């Protein structure tokens, strides 16, 4: 034992001097070692165990989700509530940081995600689709998906997150460009009556949650509310390092608070869900030419929706219908820096307002043996999608386009040609009242070559509709309209192998090529020195990934992955893309320290070099997090202690076009204590 630890320590010291990408392979090796040695443990004879005892045995294994993941016509990652708790994830962005191919950028206001070498700075996450229980939450003004603390649901209310890589517009339409993230919330059955949770952590952060869930015969009731407040940090931005701007130091401007309410009622085939979310965030970066170090600069993000779904079989058809109404707001005051010294500071207020109504119907049936057909249609009526300045001058809102209508039809078929070979094909037609129509197909061949070997060949198309914000940006006088803006388009081809190794370990790897046309890009217009969104250029990404994941019966589980991607703009010089790391590696490991009572969850993330908007190079970094989770009082009380960025690594994310900073320093080491009680 000691010898092994010593060896591992020595290998770590030696490793530091080697090439960066070897780190990932060492992680893979360690995980394989852990998983295989634990798999060799003896099992007791289950045939002698009583029925009651059997139903009380805790199981660790390839669950249904993983099983269905290997049948899925895409590369899929599932993160469960158990992992969320044991790794101490604070929000959806933390979950995505652990997902192969994903990387996260934070500008101390919003959190953005990049996928497989594409993390377009300033795109408001409009190239990924985020769903809550199947309900689209990208808003209709910016196409924005909220991911950080601004995400609409407390992570503790998440049952699992299904992350599907690759274009999926054939099923979901717009925004399903690089990935679809479906967040599935907990049901009344899964919450046993009351749950109270409290946490406190670095930077003056407190959070409280109260949840009630109960299944009354056929009626399921779930109600949860969360409150969060954080004072934030005192920050330093070098470009403001002058006497007029407090030497670049800003205090009391990094504050954040949010409230979430989630209510879900289920009765037979009906689901009624209501969600309320609002967040206030101070803006320390002084974006959009604001006065630096002014605590009045903040923004409010709010989103509410109510949805009603009904599922019922009609003859041989399984029919689902649903309707929903969403309202999203993003607004806040911006103290504008005076043009001439001595002039007063003018407080202007920007505002984005979106209201939309959605109706959907989907029907599926077995057509013949091993053939499953799905038909669907969706109508989305953007009743309001405007933006403007509330105060200066008052209530001017951009008139074009302030509403729009989207209608779509899709068909998808899963056909088991033989017992080993499945074809999954689909196509969706979308009509937009703004730019017209787009049709996006997808096809997947899944071949189960052997009991533990699955081969996949995946082809897909997707589009990203130009958002109102891109067509006619009204964010002060810096932008010009572009009413001819067309959707962006992606075509993707991917080959994957999924191989089971023994009973508990799975190895998967893939090669892919993504081609993007008509990239919507912010371009500076020389004539008036303003900015405009244009379909400027194409880009290509060619990459590979490999992941080893395992779950041993003794509770040890983990995954290690390595991604490499080569991206470039399709121009004569093949210029590199900004915010596009070539390599990344992730390690996740859960170890039961005391069986069933104390768990350690550790993660390490490595992200390669990236370019900023100004073409500077941000150095690669490694961040490590550790969470200890203890269950006490017969699982009625959980206590978790987490340390994030445990090595206090100093690292930077690139700024957006709106930020005056080209690179923004990220959090150093921080800690959190969390207590959850169930009764």
């Amino acid at each position, binding site marked *: 034992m000691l010898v*092994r630890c010593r060896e591992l320590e020595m290998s770590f010291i030696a490793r530091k001097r080697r090439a960066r990408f070897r780190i990932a392979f060492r992680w893979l090796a360690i995980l394989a070692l852990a998983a295989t040695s634990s798999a060799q443990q003896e099992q007791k004879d289950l045939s002698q165990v009583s029925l009651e005892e059997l139903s009380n045995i805790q199981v660790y294994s390839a669950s249904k989700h993983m099983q269905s993941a290997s049948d899925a016509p895409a590369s899929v990652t599932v993160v469960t509530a158990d992992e969320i708790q044991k790794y101490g994830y604070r929000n959806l962005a933390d979950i995505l940081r652990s997902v192969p191919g994903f990387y996260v950028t934070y500008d101390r206001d919003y959190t953005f995600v990049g996928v497989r070498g594409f993390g377009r700075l300033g795109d408001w996450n409009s190239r990924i689709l985020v769903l809550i229980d199947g309900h689209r939450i990208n808003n209709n003004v910016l196409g924005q998906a909220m991911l950080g603390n601004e995400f609409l649901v407390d992570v503790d209310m998440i049952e699992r997150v299904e992350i599907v890589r690759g274009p999926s517009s054939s099923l979901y339409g717009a925004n399903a460009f690089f990935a679809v993230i479906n967040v599935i919330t907990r049901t009344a059955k899964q919450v046993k009556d009351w749950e109270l949770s409290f946490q406190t952590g670095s930077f003056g952060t407190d959070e409280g949650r109260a949840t009630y869930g109960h299944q009354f015969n056929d009626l399921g009731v779930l109600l949860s509310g969360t409150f969060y407040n954080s004072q934030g940090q005192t920050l330093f931005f070098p470009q403001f390092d002058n006497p007029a701007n407090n030497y670049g130091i800003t205090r009391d401007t990094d504050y954040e608070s949010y409230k979430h309410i989630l209510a879900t009622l289920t009765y037979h085939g009906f689901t009624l869900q209501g969600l309320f979310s609002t967040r206030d965030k101070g803006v320390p970066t002084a974006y959009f030419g604001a006065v630096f170090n002014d605590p009045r600069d903040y923004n409010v993000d709010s989103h509410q929706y109510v949805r009603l779904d009904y599922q019922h079989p009609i003859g041989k058809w399984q029919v689902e219908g649903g309707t929903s109404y969403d309202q999203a707001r993003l607004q806040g005051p911006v103290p504008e820096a005076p043009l001439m010294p001595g002039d007063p500071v003018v407080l202007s207020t920007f505002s984005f307002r979106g209201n939309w109504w959605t109706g959907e119907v989907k029907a599926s049936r077995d057509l013949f043996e091993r053939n499953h057909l799905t038909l669907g249609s969706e109508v989305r009526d953007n009743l309001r999608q405007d933006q403007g300045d509330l105060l200066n001058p008052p209530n001017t809102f951009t008139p074009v386009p302030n509403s729009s209508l989207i209608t779509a039809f899709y068909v998808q078929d899963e056909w088991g040609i033989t017992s080993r070979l499945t074809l999954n094909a689909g196509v969706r037609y979308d009509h937009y009242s703004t730019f017209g129509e787009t049709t996006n197909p997808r096809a997947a061949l899944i071949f189960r070559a052997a009991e533990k070997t699955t081969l996949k060949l995946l082809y897909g198309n997707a589009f990203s509709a130009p958002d109102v914000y891109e067509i006619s940006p009204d964010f002060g006088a810096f932008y010009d309209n572009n009413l001819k803006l067309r959707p962006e388009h992606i075509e993707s081809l991917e080959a994957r192998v999924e191989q089971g190794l023994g009973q508990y370990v799975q190895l998967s790897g893939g090669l892919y090529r993504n081609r993007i046309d008509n990239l919507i890009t912010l371009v500076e217009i020389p004539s008036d020195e303003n900015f405009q969104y244009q379909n400027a250029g194409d880009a290509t990404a060619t990459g590979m990934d490999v992941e080893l994941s395992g779950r041993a019966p003794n509770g040890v589980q983990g995954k290690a992955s390595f991604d490499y991607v080569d991206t470039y703009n399709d121009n004569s010089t093949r210029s590199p893309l900004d915010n596009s790391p070539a390599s990344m590696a992730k390690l996740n490991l859960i170890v039961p320290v005391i069986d069933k009572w104390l768990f350690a969850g550790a993660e390490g993330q490595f992200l390669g070099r990236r370019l900023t908007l100004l073409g500077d190079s941000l150095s690669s970094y490694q961040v490590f997090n550790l969470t200890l989770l203890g269950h006490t009082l017969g699982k009625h009380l959980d206590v978790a202690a987490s340390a994030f960025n445990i090595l206090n690594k100093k690292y930077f994310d690139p700024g957006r076009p709106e930020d005056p900073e080209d690179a923004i320093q990220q959090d150093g080491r921080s800690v959190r204590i969390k207590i959850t009680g169930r009764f």
Partner: protein
Amino acid sequence: MRRPKLLDFGVKLRGKMFLFLVLCLAARFAAAQSATEYQVKAAFLFNFAKFVEWPPSSFHDGSAPLQICVLGRDPFGEVLREITREKTVNGHKLEVRGVVDLQVARACHILFIAFSERTRLKQIFEALQGSYALTVGDAKDFAEQGGMINFVLQDDRVQFEVSRTAVEQSGLKISSKLLAVAKVVIG
């Protein structure tokens, strides 16, 4: 140039120490009394053989084996064979086999329908009409589509639902002991 310090601990935890800690934790394997999902499911299948009564006509003779079959992609590996090895129930030896043909599946006593077959459950149940096969599965709406016993995972534990009507229509008798442990009994 002044520079505010981010949160700083008195203790400087070095990178290698942290990794060392993680690796040593990984190397430390707590002996756990737990099992994989399909080991538990295999043990349940063995118990179903004990707590369900088949009509004598479903066996060729008193010493004919009780057949436990797996239809579709077998998730059990060797565990189902191991758990039933050398076991007898009411004088019948237990026999495990994989089946592909639905006509062959009609002769099974317990038929586990793997997740890979979830898209054609309706056809399978139609083909099994009039047989004495106890259908067991773990696809999401297995019981709703006409399956008899469905495994569900709850809090990392294997539970099962029983569709009593489906079992009794096929002429099988199910023990009250089994029903008592079932999470949900339909019909």
